[in-house]
């Protein structure tokens, strides 16, 4: 944008770093409602040029020369941006990486039979034991907490449609994080400071047991502000009614932060001075940052000059989360805990890529800053750790003081067309709540596991011990295969491993390999696999979703293990996104390869190596549904034999209870 910069007053040009869009002289991005007197900088100069032809000619000459010079520079970066954005575009749409003409090419070709969704296929997609409202659109989890015997869950909800919009706070309660009862909306857009949206927020439970909720409101002028709310009646364990603080908003975008880059306040934690501290994600140009504020009463705040952290080129940080983890025990810690046996996690949802990234690091409570243990995988960098390598966004944790664990919620959106969402009448689910803790064995990553309470849904089970010869695909007879919990252990036979290591002809591919780049997904056959399960598969495997380990040899001859889910053949439908997801999974010496899979209709949650690498997928089979959905176990290895020892449970429905006045009255009496 240097051509317009050349026409800005010199002082403005020197202060402001170059941005991909024109900045107005007052430094704020224009919004017709908030800046009615907005002027384009060079319009003024052009007005002058009318009267002074020579000056206009001269200025225009400068502009075009500067423009063409900066265009070359801009194009150079544009090329890289374009390539990365078109490949991520392609990845998002499930389109082959090779089609980079920017046009949408659906999977299949002109000769694919025309496909249409019918109500039977669509109604099958609804999950049985994942949290979702009765109808319409949901997105971010909000303000999760445990209070007076109930787990509370709030969420971004559109009461009017199956797409995002008109956002308010939905509410539900549960005794066990699995069996939910829907409650009336907790907060609606009824104030000027949230009339354009009651957006994401977090709860803080105070030492006296009371609750404060901080949330982002989009004001009547579409400015993002932070608001305070609290329960109307702390004696109501269902926390049905919420009161908004009359003095809202309690925070408005500070100088230097644009009015639409200020959202998702966190749970507060104590400072050494005894104040409360929160952090709020934002960005400055393309640097993602997290602002820090201190408060004593949640009504007035001091902004710290320093940031909690920031990482260049990561874009807007949404849904920032910040919390301590124990270095020595797999347990949860209250958000205010600190000490020598504690590390701190900074997590952010990256607006640019729709990935949730986190990093392990050290918090300096004296000045409210944090640095990562490994800056090469800092928050938001493409190589940095993610909670989940599939469809998983806007996640948020809370400390469950009831059971001393930290629980992770996440929004799992759809990967289908909006027409299908409109037709089926709903969109999005939440992941099964997971406990999250530091992996005490590696010290470098988190481990996640579905909450124990999910085992209460387990019905009958079958145990299997199989030897999978190379190239085998074996049906696993478990009856209906649409609601399953699978725990499995795999081991490559020693002879096969010895042969592999001895074989110099096996190509080292670990450094180049990734689940998604490996275009053929799980159909590839190599020396040691891949091997795993194929879920939601038809008998003929015309539709299937493999979840598997892929073992590659590294240049140092060491093995590198990848954990992947391949949705590319999950459905013959041509209007759904079908990526191949996954990542490397750390496997320590002496460990067997383990995986856990939860299958629940159109969602598959896979946990590799005890939750070191997790993958959530949305799949929309057209024939692998109801009784036609089967389970297979497979080993694609060329000549390695793999033993598989696993147990498969049928899972009951969670019977999530629709809202009714009677149900609520009954609950209040219990």
């Amino acid at each position: 944008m240097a051509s317009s910069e050349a026409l800005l007053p010199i002082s403005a040009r020197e202060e402001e770093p170059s941005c991909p869009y024109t900045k107005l002289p007052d430094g704020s991005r224009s919004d017709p409602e908030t800046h009615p007197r907005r002027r384009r900088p060079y319009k003024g100069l052009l007005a002058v040029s009318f009267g002074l032809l020579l000056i206009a000619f001269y200025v225009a000459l400068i502009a075009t020369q500067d423009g063409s010079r900066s265009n070359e520079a801009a194009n150079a970066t544009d090329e890289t941006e374009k390539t990365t954005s078109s490949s991520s575009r392609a990845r998002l749409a499930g389109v082959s990486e090779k089609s980079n003409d920017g046009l949408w090419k659906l999977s299949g070709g002109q000769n694919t039979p025309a496909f249409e969704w019918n109500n039977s296929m669509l109604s099958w997609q609804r999950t049985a034991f994942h949290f979702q409202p009765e109808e319409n659109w949901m997105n971010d989890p909000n303000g999760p907490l445990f209070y007076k015997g109930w787990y509370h869950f709030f969420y971004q909800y559109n009461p009017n449609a199956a797409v995002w919009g008109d956002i308010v706070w939905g509410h539900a309660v549960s005794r066990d994080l699995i069996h939910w009862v829907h409650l009336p909306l907790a907060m609606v857009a009824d104030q000027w400071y949230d009339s354009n949206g009651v957006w994401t927020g977090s709860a803080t439970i105070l030492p006296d047991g009371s609750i404060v909720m901080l949330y982002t409101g989009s004001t009547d002028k579409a400015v993002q502000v932070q608001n305070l709310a609290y329960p109307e009646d702390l004696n109501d364990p269902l926390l049905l009614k919420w009161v908004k603080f009359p003095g809202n908003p309690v925070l408005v975008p500070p100088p230097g932060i644009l009015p639409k880059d200020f959202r998702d306040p966190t749970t507060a934690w104590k400072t050494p001075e005894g104040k409360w501290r929160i952090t709020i994600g934002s960005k400055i140009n393309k640097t993602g940052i997290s602002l820090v504020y201190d408060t004593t009463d949640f009504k007035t705040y001091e902004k710290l000059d320093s940031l909690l952290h920031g990482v260049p080129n990561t874009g807007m940080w949404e849904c920032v989360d910040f919390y301590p983890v124990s270095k020595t025990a797999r347990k949860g810690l209250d958000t205010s805990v600190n000490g020598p046996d504690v590390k701190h996690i900074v997590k952010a949802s990256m607006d640019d890529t729709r990935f949730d990234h986190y990093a392990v690091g050290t918090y300096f409570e004296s000045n409210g800053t944090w640095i990562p243990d490994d800056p090469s995988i800092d928050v938001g960098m493409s190589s940095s750790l993610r909670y989940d390598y599939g469809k998983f966004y806007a996640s948020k944790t809370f400390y469950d003081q009831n059971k001393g664990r930290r629980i992770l919620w996440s929004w799992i959106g759809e990967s289908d067309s909006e027409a299908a969402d409109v037709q089926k009448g709903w969109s999005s689910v939440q992941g099964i709540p997971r406990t999250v803790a530091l992996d005490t064995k590696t010290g470098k990553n988190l481990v996640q596991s579905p909450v124990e309470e999910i085992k209460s849904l387990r019905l009958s089970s079958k145990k299997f011990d199989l030897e999978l010869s190379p190239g085998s695909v074996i049906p696993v007879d478990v009856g209906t295969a649409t609601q399953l919990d699978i725990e499995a252990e795999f081991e490559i036979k020693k002879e096969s491993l010895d042969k592999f290591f001895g074989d110099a002809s096996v190509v080292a591919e670990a450094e180049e390999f990734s689940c998604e780049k490996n275009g053929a997904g799980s159909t590839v056959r190599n020396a040691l696999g891949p091997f795993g399960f194929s879920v939601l598969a038809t008998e003929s495997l015309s539709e299937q979703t493999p979840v598997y380990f892929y073992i590659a040899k590294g240049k140092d001859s060491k093995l590198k293990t990848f954990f992947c889910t391949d949705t590319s053949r999950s459905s013959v439908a041509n209007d759904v996104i079908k990526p191949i997801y996954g990542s490397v999974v750390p496997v320590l010496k002496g460990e067997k390869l383990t995986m856990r899979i939860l299958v629940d209709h159109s969602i598959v949650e896979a946990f590799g190596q005890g939750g070191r690498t997790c993958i959530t997928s949305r799949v929309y089979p057209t024939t692998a549904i109801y009784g036609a959905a089967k389970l297979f176990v497979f080993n694609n290895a060329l000549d390695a034999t793999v033993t598989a020892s696993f147990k498969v449970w049928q899972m009951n429905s969670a019977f999530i209870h629709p809202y009714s006045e009677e149900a609520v009255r009954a609950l209040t009496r219990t």
Partner: protein
Amino acid sequence: MKMIVMVMMMMMMSEGSMIDQTCKQTPDFNLCVSLLNSDPRGSSADISGLALILIDKIKVLATKTLNEINGLYKKRPELKQALDQCSRRYKTILNADVPEAIEAISKGVPKFGEDGVIDAGVEASVCEEGFQGKSPLTSLTKSMQNISSVTRAVVRMLL
């Protein structure tokens, strides 16, 4: 006289530079420029404004296509099934994708706008494929795919 014409041309070049700079970062510069220049708001809009103009073009094109679909029921009754599918898909563009995108971009959460815009292209493609190579709507659906792709690139600049 020549001076006046030259100055006016220079003015147009620098007038268009916001549109130029934006459109250079989209997959179809010419389409982008012609769409934005055809709207009187284009010359003074910021990137949000340009995105909203393009979404308006999507809305107009969807309406036009729906009218075409409705007309085809009588002229080509043998295509009823595919036309039904297209009708559903294009109604989604008008009733779901466009409002979602407008709200999202106006409120500064462009990622939902990106979803809506991508979906407009998907719906058009699905409609087209329903005719299995014998579509009477090809130029309209292709237009939607192209506009969707350009609009998406502009919306991504807001992230």
